């Protein structure tokens, strides 16, 4: 690691010749990742599916403007339709003590989590919305996954 001497005191250096190689490597890696993702993640943006602990509890198709709730006592789903927007509350347990609020817009073909009581940071609520068939919203504490349909990778298990 590069150090410099200033006023008789040895301190760390903010820049060195070798940094150029590191920055080029990082830029190449990031560019490769963009190309990889653009190539692999193609989707027809058909709709979204919601899984709770690996079980499918909800699915919808944007073009049909319709949705299906898979009856499940362990993971109840409550819906409310407001025009083009469908509001769902997905419960992570049968006693309805843990939930995630999901908003699906059939006109804009997007899905996002608006609120949850999973953790103080609420990572799932801050995840970018699923749009153009790309993205995924996962609530780890509640084991709830919201995934786009149409264009699923063969490696996806649930």
């Amino acid at each position, binding site marked *: 690691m*590069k150090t410099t001497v200033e006023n008789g005191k040895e301190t760390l250096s*903010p820049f060195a010749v*070798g*940094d150029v190689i590191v920055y080029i490597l990082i830029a190449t890696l990031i560019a490769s*990742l963009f190309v990889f993702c653009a190539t692999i993640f193609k989707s027809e943006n058909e709709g979204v599916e919601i899984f709770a602990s690996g079980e499918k509890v909800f699915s919808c198709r944007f073009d049909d403007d319709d949705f299906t709730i898979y009856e499940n006592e362990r993971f109840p789903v409550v819906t409310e339709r407001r025009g083009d927007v469908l509001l769902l509350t997905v419960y992570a347990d049968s006693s309805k003590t843990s939930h995630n609020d999901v908003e699906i817009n059939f006109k804009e073909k997007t899905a996002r989590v608006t609120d949850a009581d999973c953790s*103080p940071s609420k990572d799932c609520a*801050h995840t970018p919305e699923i749009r153009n068939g790309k993205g995924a919203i*996962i609530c*780890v504490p509640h084991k709830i996954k919201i*995934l786009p349909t149409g264009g699923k990778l063969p490696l996806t298990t649930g």
Partner: protein
Amino acid sequence: MNDHFFSTKKIVSCAVLSALALVSFTIENLFPPLFIPGARIGVSNVFVLLSVVYAGAPCGLITLLTKILLGSVFSGNVSAMLYSLPSGLLSFSIEALLIKRAKNVSVVAISGLGGVCSLLIQNCVYCLILGATEYLVYAPYLAIVGFLAGLTVGFIVFLLSKTVPEKFFGAEKRPRDE
């Protein structure tokens, strides 16, 4: 004074840096992530990096493990340990190796590389454990955020090395450059 590997001064500074890393990690976990899940500036990594630079890799490892293990418990998000531990250990290994062996690379670049590696590995572990490869779509953005966060951390470490006396960090010798 004998330069023992774990001198009293080094043990004390390791403890102080571990406590600082733990506190900053716990506070940082209370805030929402930066733009995408898992993305944080990682202010706690400042203290891990300082520990490695001035007190050596073993002390840096102690600081890192204290931050991740106790920080996950204190912040009430124990499941996060599954993702933080492998990514933290791997990026720490890369940083410690570069600090010891790369003579012409600055701490800012090392930290930037560590930030990229940390978030990318975290993303991969996330996908493996949850079986949802769709999450890989965030990999390029996480890499950018990790790089910028790593640069910030490295620059903070550089500023601290200029302003804070090195004896505070338990340095028996000058910052390691062998």
